[in-house]
């Protein structure tokens, strides 16, 4: 069943009077248990696409549906939060640099459960991504790869149905990239969670179920041959930008 559906989404950024088309009539559907990688070069609009999928940013046109409900423009956006069942793996440091990683990861839970329960779940999330030993470490003590893993733990601690990962492999070595993508793949397989991950390099996409590419506002994907075809791509006839 479709969990996330972007339908004919368009988005432009404006630099003065100059319009930069970031997303041009982009459609995408995602199911639980799927890891979908979106490849795009720097400034291709990957992060914008993820922010729109998260409901953090509104598209100029088109709709975003999460679990059958319109995501953008609803109650959530007015509250300024991210949907509780959507996890975000970004690249930001914790807001307080001296925090223990356990507290950092537990933070998203504190509004929902007791501190004790939050700590228990945060411990589990850290173990799940393979860095249980970093519970008492501080951000500045971590390597880039460890930071990425902790950030993923932060993203999955609420056991989201949809996990959005924004260039999580960027800046990592080849083996570390594989570890991260392998982890995202196992999260997709096991929970099962729908995982949408942007990747700065194509080979990073190899662990995913589907590879899409974003460039010049266009999202391209391979024809899907598995049973249960869900994507109808609007056919373009010409080379108009």
């Amino acid at each position, binding site marked *: 069943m479709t969990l996330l559906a972007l339908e004919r989404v368009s988005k432009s950024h404006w630099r003065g009077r100059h319009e930069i088309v970031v997303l041009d009539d982009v459609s995408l559907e995602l199911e639980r248990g799927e890891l979908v990688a979106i490849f795009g070069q720097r400034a291709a609009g990957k992060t914008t696409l993820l922010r729109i999928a998260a409901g953090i940013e509104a598209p100029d046109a088109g709709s975003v549906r999460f679990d059958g409900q319109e995501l953008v423009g609803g109650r959530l956006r007015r509250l300024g939060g991210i949907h509780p069942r959507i996890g975000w793996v970004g690249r930001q440091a914790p807001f307080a640099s001296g925090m223990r990683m356990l507290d950092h990861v537990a933070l998203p839970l504190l509004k929902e459960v007791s501190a004790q329960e939050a700590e228990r779940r945060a411990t589990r999330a850290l173990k799940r991504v393979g860095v249980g030993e970093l519970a008492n470490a501080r951000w500045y003590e971590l390597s880039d790869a460890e930071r990425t893993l902790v950030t993923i733990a932060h993203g999955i601690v609420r056991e989201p149905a949809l996990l959005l990962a924004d260039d999580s492999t960027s800046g990592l070595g080849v083996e570390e990239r594989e570890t991260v993508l392998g982890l995202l793949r196992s999260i997709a397989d096991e929970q099962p969670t729908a995982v949408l991950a942007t990747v700065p390099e194509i080979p990073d996409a190899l662990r995913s179920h589907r590879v899409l590419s974003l*460039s010049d506002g266009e999202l391209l994907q391979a024809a899907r041959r598995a049973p249960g075809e869900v994507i109808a791509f609007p056919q373009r006839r010409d*080379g108009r930008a």
Partner: protein
Amino acid sequence: MSVKHAVLGLVIERPGYGYELIQRLEQRIEGWRPSETAVYPALRSLRGEGMIRAREASATRVVSAHRGVVWYEATEMGREEFRAWVRAPTDLAPQRDPFWLKVAFASVEDLPWLVELARELERACLERMAELGGQGSSVEDLRRDDVAWREIGQAWLRRTEAAQLAVRIEAVQQIRAAMKRAIQRHERSLGSAPAPSSEPSRQ
């Protein structure tokens, strides 16, 4: 690539017959997809050159289902020839993708078609990427001490294909953007002068 060398390599690994070799070839070098029509002539030619020979039926105790099929095994000469080929220098493979030839010789009027071709090419690369994905060993697995060279070499066949696809996708994306810009420029230049058969373009 040379189907002949691939077939010879397979027969050296272990004897086989035509259909079985085609299947084994697909498993071993899945990216290449040699057709039956390439494998059988390769076998004939290798046999003619004395690189492989048909196995004697009496010596093989072939089960009845395989009666009538010709099993091939490598000759000593075939092994030597193959070893020499493995160790011989390899030329840089030439650029053979007709898309780039089209791009180089296209006129501006052709570009809208080529933009669509570029999309198709990129989709095809993504599709192949998805086929390659999910299979194969990770770099970490390959570093283990108990991994046989054959598995490592096989994995790299796939990894290099993925790397080449990645480069192609990036190049196709860039040329697509460049072609779109050229089309826009062309349309603007048409817009400034009266163009009989095209719509009045207004940006």
